[in-house]
């Protein structure tokens, strides 16, 4: 049974994640209930929006602890997408310093332009280089493109947690991973064939 | 205001603030504004009606003299090759085109792009055309591949007839290149009677751009098929429009007979009957005619999807044709449309839907699901749950059948 529990904090397009996971062989279930999250076999945390607002909602709903426990103690596969990836960090600096869920130690800070040709936010298709033998990238052609739309990035404290890198903005983490907890800065559910490969790999974990 | 020149841009009436806009219908015929490439003038009359009215100002004998000149340019006096290609389906218009060209002393090569699901009466009408005394080429695309494409385009773009649209325009042009016969004599320019931008109605030549813009391809290209359902370029040879180089080398040029003769499908059918064209004993399902679209069993599905997407079907087309020509009042047409337009296509030419769908491996349930997906809910009655209201025969009801 490939159940995938999607955490809905009310700030993102759940539909796309649901459909994409179905398409990739998963059996998605959407929840806001911490108990369901704790018991989940696999978790997906999608996210569109601003860090502080998202954390406020997760905290209010009691989901923050539930996600952390499922990931760290339960060692369940977790996939944070875009803002969801950033929320897995220890702390975020968007607008105000906010504590994250704390699954993967690191900070979320603004993207820095490496040169005058770069613009922020980072919007569009860009390459991801596999630098950590990432299980999510299995079968994906090297330097494939994925769809990004973000202004902040996740800097993991431990370089071993950086699994995929995008060369822009001085090189930032496109994929982070610690154990079975992963974060993708891009949107796999919008990245067509390459994105579906990522989701299929995740569903297979 | 000259009726021949229709300025683009409809006069959108004052819009109901904050509310859903009702569909408007032509004041003269029965076309709704949802029809692609249709627009209304300041009197609320559509461009199809205005185009028809502009016929009065046309000097038809001058046009026919022009036609004779064009044909003379292409006539092969030594008889070593055909004078022209005439694309035909075997229907009423095809008969009419061939009869006219033979009268004008041309030696045409008839080219038929075999349709999706050829009916027995369709086959008999094709054979009848040959008996008029002409060489005939039938190009049949691989039916196994064709069926796959029918199924694919029905669900992906809501049009079972997509391969038909491509092949009926592409194959005659390919034949022109292959047989080295530059002149193609098409029948009616659909943009004339059925509405279209001014530039296309006065334009006489059907080129690649025309095909893409007006050929009913819905934006889906032949190149989009490659890689889907294991279809390779080698399967799509007859779907591939000739290159510009080939077209230029042969000097391929097309004309519409409908530019030179005031076109009337019903009149064409009457004339064709005199030459052996066969009609049905009863009205075709969902249409108001027994004399057209007799060759392809899939036509009912095609027309039904037009209804689901745009809110009008074949009955509206035919009634509007008759209304324009004074054979029927608008009110009579409207009543007939209410009775027949957009009925769920349980059969076509008597062939049951399940059998028609079975030809491309689909069942009725899956078909109904696809129908629902393509229905423009804004046009039909829905219940308080937002579900479409259907009668016991799966028929939908439009919100509006005419202007308020």
């Amino acid at each position, binding site marked *: 049974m490939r159940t995938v529990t999607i955490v809905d904090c009310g700030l993102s*397009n759940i539909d*796309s994640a649901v459909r994409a996971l179905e398409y990739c062989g998963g059996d998605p279930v959407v929840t806001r209930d911490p108990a369901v999250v704790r018991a989940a076999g696999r978790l997906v945390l999608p996210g569109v929006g*601003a860090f502080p607002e998202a954390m406020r909602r997760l905290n209010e709903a009691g989901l923050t602890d539930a996600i952390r426990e499922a990931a760290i103690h339960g060692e369940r596969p977790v996939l944070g997408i875009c803002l969801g990836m950033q929320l897995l960090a220890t702390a975020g600096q968007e607008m105000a310093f906010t504590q994250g869920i704390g699954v993967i130690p690191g900070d979320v800070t603004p993207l820095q332009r490496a040169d005058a040709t770069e613009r922020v*936010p980072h919007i569009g298709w860009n390459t991801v280089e596999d630098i950590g033998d990432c299980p999510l990238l299995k079968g994906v052609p090297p330097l494939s493109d994925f769809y990004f739309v973000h202004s902040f990035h996740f800097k993991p404290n431990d370089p071993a947690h950086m699994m995929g890198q995008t060369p822009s903005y001085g090189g930032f983490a496109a994929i982070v991973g610690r154990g079975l907890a992963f974060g993708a800065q891009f949107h796999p559910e919008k990245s*067509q064939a390459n994105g579906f490969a990522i989701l299929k790999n995740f569903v297979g974990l | 205001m000259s009726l021949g020149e229709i300025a683009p841009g409809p006069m959108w009436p004052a819009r*109901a603030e904050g509310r859903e*806009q009702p569909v408007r219908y032509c004041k003269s015929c029965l076309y709704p504004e949802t029809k692609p490439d249709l627009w209304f003038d300041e009197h609320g009359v559509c461009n199809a009606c205005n185009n028809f009215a502009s016929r009065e100002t046309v000097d038809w004998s001058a046009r026919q003299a022009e036609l004779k000149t064009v044909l003379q340019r292409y006539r092969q006096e030594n008889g070593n090759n055909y004078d022209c290609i005439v694309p035909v389906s075997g229907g009423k218009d095809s008969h009419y085109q061939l009869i006219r060209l033979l009268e004008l002393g041309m030696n045409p090569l008839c080219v038929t792009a075999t349709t999706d699901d050829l009916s027995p009466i369709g086959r008999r009408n094709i054979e009848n055309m040959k008996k008029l005394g002409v060489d005939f080429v039938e190009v049949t695309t691989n039916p196994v591949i064709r069926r796959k494409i029918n199924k694919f385009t029905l669900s992906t773009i809501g049009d079972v007839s997509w391969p038909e649209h491509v092949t009926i325009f592409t194959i005659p042009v390919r034949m022109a290149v292959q047989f080295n016969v530059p002149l193609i004599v098409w029948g009616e320019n659909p943009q004339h009677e059925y509405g279209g931008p001014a530039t296309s109605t006065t334009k006489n030549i059907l080129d690649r751009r025309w095909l893409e813009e007006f050929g009913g391809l819905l934006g889906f290209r032949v*190149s989009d098929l490659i890689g889907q359902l294991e279809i390779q370029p080698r399967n799509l040879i007859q779907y591939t429009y000739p290159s510009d180089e080939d077209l230029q080398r042969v000097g391929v040029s097309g004309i519409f007979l409908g530019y030179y003769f005031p076109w009337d499908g019903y009149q064409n059918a009457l004339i064709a009957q005199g030459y052996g064209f066969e009609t049905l004993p009863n009205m075709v399902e969902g249409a108001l005619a027994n004399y057209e679209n007799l060759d392809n069993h899939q036509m009912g599905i095609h027309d039904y999807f037009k209804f689901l*997407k745009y809110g009008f079907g074949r009955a509206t087309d035919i009634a509007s044709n008759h209304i324009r020509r004074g054979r029927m009042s608008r009110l009579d047409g409207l009543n007939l449309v209410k009775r027949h337009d957009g009925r769920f296509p349980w059969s076509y030419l008597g062939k049951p839907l399940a059998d028609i769908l079975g030809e491309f491996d689909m069942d009725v349930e899956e078909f109904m699901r696809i129908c629902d997906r393509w229905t423009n809910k804004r046009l039909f009655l829905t219940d308080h749950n937002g579900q479409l209201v259907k009668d016991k025969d799966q028929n939908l009801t439009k919100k509006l059948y005419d202007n308020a």
Partner: protein
Amino acid sequence: MVKIRVMPTLLHRDMGLVKGERFDSWRRTGSALQAIKVYNMRGVDELVFMDITASPDGRPPDFDLIDDLADECFMPMTVGGGVRDAEDIGRLLGVGADKVSLNSHALANPDIIAEGARTFGSQCIVLSIDVLRGPDGRLEVMSHGGKRPTGKDPVEWAKRGADLGAGEILLTSIDRDGTFQGYDIALAKAVAAAVDVPVIASGGAGDYAHMADVLRQADVAAVAAASIFHFTEKTPAEAKKYLKKEGFNVRI
């Protein structure tokens, strides 16, 4: 480097798609659903979907329609038309938009840009600017589907919008729209030079060379187009192949 995007645009009016010239969008081009499905199958970079009568009609976006359409595709989508406030933005994001475009309401009340960015992040907020070049050559921002003059200069407005938090500018030349004459390169260049956020050029593409021209001469991040894809045999994939041959960084 992030890749240059080629973005087809769909304009929706009442119950179907339309296209026209210079914002006089009168020509019905068919069902939104089939256009979405065709583009989805082709894997385009991103789709722009605009409800062009929402603001002129004084009504909100049609959330149900967007929901239905988003269900049929997996492409990144920027959705606009009639977006009034943060609640509308949230709802559109909730039904499937990746980014939401603000235009007329932002002109009337620029604070909604800031509010949107605060709640959802700048990356979700696109400021759509429609520009008319007057007979004297002066550029003016228009609102309500190109109908109402605002007296604003596009460069100033773009700067203000980016300062308030818009993450992207969708810049459309009303004069060039649907004309196949090429983009308004001077306009694109001026706006792209004035802001640090990505700028999408829109209005006028007639062939692939036009796209190359505006990308070469103005520092835009993407090109959007409608008529060229609706009415000719040209496709976004072919456009990108052409651009790649011309040396641009695109996704093939």
